[in-house]
């Protein structure tokens, strides 16, 4: 293995750049280094002005999503050696406004996350000394959708979100589905009202790439298609039983 690799990093500073350009750096190529290590090496030793987000370095905080050679990746879990001999091109996540260098504006994503009411909704709460029983099978029904780390790779991979920023997007819908499928929750109808609108589930054309890039195997594409099925069934039920026989 050569002992150095070239990294092309997208640079953008709103004060003096009209659009992003690239800076090229050479960094050591070490077997155990991930792309994020290379970026930190650049920041610490070559160019202190490079900006990017990171924190846990173990693939669970969701901060360090970027585009590596065109594909959305968690840079803390993407090994440099997989791209040898290089060059490796690192860009900000696609489909989001770029604030600076590799930092994107995530506020739209956060608004969408909150809109689908991602919390337990119940008519009556049990007292605190009682638990809601939930069998391992019932837990398994939603567990996969509870694994989302909000890294937004799925939004970066979704062409629908790129073309129509109003689309609720994969993670937000998967999160709604996580609560819908939770045996303790009674809020599915409220969420359906929100997500069966045009910008909700029906915006999805099932490209499926959100599921492919998800680092935690959440399968948002599956969640959306299943949600469509539920929405259709509910619509049919309402048609046949207009008085709301749930």
């Amino acid at each position, binding site marked *: 293995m050569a002992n150095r690799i070239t990294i092309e990093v997208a640079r953008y*500073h*709103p*004060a003096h750049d009209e659009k992003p350009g690239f800076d090229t750096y050479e960094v050591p190529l070490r077997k*155990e280094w991930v792309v994020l290590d290379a970026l930190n090496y650049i*920041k*610490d*030793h070559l*160019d*202190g*002005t490079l*900006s*990017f*987000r990171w*924190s*846990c*370095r*173990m*693939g*669970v*905080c*969701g*901060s360090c999503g970027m585009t590596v050679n065109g594909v959305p990746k968690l840079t803390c*879990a993407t090994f440099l050696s997989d791209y040898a001999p290089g060059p490796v091109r690192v860009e900000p996540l696609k489909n989001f406004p770029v*604030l*600076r*260098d590799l930092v994107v504006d*995530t*506020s739209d994503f*956060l*608004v969408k*996350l*909150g809109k689908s*009411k*991602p*919390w*337990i909704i119940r008519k009556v*709460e*049990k007292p*605190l*000394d*009682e*638990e*809601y*029983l*939930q*069998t*391992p099978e*019932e*837990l398994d029904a*939603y567990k996969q959708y*509870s*694994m*989302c*780390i*909000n890294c937004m790779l799925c939004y970066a991979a979704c062409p629908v979100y790129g073309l129509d920023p109003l689309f609720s997007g994969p993670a937000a819908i998967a*999160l709604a589905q996580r*609560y819908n499928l*939770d045996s*303790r*929750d009674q809020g599915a109808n409220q969420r359906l009202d929100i997500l069966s609108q045009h910008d909700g589930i029906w915006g999805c054309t099932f490209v499926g790439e959100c599921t492919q890039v998800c680092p935690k195997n959440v399968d948002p594409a599956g969640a959306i298609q299943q949600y469509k099925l539920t929405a259709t069934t509910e619509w049919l039920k309402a048609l046949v039983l207009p008085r709301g026989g749930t």
Partner: protein
Amino acid sequence: MIFRSDPACLDTGFSGVYHRRSALMLDISSHDIVLIGGGGAGLRAAIAISETAPNLSVAVVSKVYPMRSHTVAAEGGAAGVHLAEDSLDEHAYDTISGGDWLCDQDAVEAFVKEAPLELMRLEHWGCPWSRDPNGRIAVRPFGGMKKTRTWFAADKTGFHMLHTLFQTSLKYDAVTRYDEYFATRLLVDDGRVQGVVALELTTGKIQAITAKAVILCTGGCGRVFRFTTNAAIKTGDGMALAYRAGAPLKDMEFVQYHPTGLPFTGILITEAARAEGGHLLNKDGYRYLQDYNLGTPEPQPVLRSMELGPRDRLSQAFVHEQEKGRTVEGPYGPVVNLDLRHLGAKTINEKLPFVRELCLKYEHIDPISQMIPVRPVVHYMMGGVHTDLNGATPMKGLYAAGETACVSINGANRLGSNSLPELLVFGARAGSAAAAYAAEQKPPGRHLLAQALDEEARLQDQFLRKTGGREPIADLREEMQKIMENCAGIYRSGDSLSGAAGKLQELQDRFRDIRLDDRGHVFNTELISALELSCMLDVAETIAECAMRRTESRGAHQRTDYPARDDEKFLAHSLTYRGADGRPRVEYAPVTITRWPPAERVYGR
């Protein structure tokens, strides 16, 4: 929860934008309570305030989006008495003996009583706790615990707790989030803490947020050490803010090494791996813990024995094995092996999926068929901002909870799975106490503005407009981390610690000559790194100073020159104040003993 960008959330009574000089802007907003930090403790406190006093406006100021906070990385579980054969007293005794009798026992009693309720509250909010076949919440064994009482969500307990808290917090409208704001100074007037100055990362704008009470929930400071499980954000900011404002830091010499971290990355391999039956083996394949008064090896895990001993003792045993030449030499120094192979694929996949994922990804090994190389790694600060049972610090209006605080329930060594319930119990307590306090306070005085302008000027002069510095941030940081690791590690001595104190002071001087290349206002992460480094230097000094003064060995603080526990002199909390000269000044305060007089710590018998 409301976003800061929504103009409707601005409190009109005391807000406005002050243009100053040519470059920066000073923005002022006002709330009843400001929380600094949006991790587990911060979010729990925010919800507690919203539920107990819905009329109070709450601000959550965090340098990262709340779900990025380091609570997310906690793996193994959260302790709370759950089974009929368990009792609150037993949980209390395990915690107190685990902490080598430095815990305040009234705090521990409150903690063990409220922990199960808080964990159940999280169940009601949707936390996906792992279950037994009947649907009841399952519990697993954990290090230093005599009974099985650790609730878990596979091996991603912190992740699920944090996301449950964050998602639940979204339904409260009284909570305004200041996401990606870095707090740089507490506003103090008339002896009362009345707000905070923060830098908005996105714009570089300075925000003065006034409040009747401030709660620090900023987590620990593992990053002062080179090799740590802690995320990049854990730089002791809240500890430094409190310390600079005049509040004492308590028991800072107690730094927890977790016995099982992956070499190079420092990624944590949860204690749950041992609780499920994993073995620690030296290079001869020998379960070496039996040589260190931790019990006799049994095929099945035995509570409070061998691999389920407390973290301090296990990390110390590693050092002794290393001295005996019985560790394995890896590319990143000595390691021992954590063997999970006998657990089988089913247990590993169901109970420890994250451990397997991390090993496969970062070590290219599969724990189903291979042993995991591990070594001790800095994990947790037992010490922190001195608070009482309600999270109140000695400074009026200032509260703290979570790892950044020291109540203290952890004493000289925290037991695994006590920190997650701690942030719930004391996050909620601090929230309620701050709400009650805030309800009786007058609105903050207008002269806080002068302090905010001062702080803005300091940031300009020391950083953004500073020219000609020569000391790179990364170099200073690396030197500090090396000093701390060499002098304030698992074993310490008076000589090495006094050397460390001198060297850290030198670094403080060199910090004034720091080199900054980035003068931009938008997402200036170099400026943030510099601010974090200055916090870490302050905190590192307090650690070295208290460690030097505590001439005994207790829990995680082991002195080679004073190997015995000295209850006569040091059954006491260290309280470190910032002296007038900027140097740490250490005082001592008594430990509260209620029902468990100091005794020998016994494991494996």
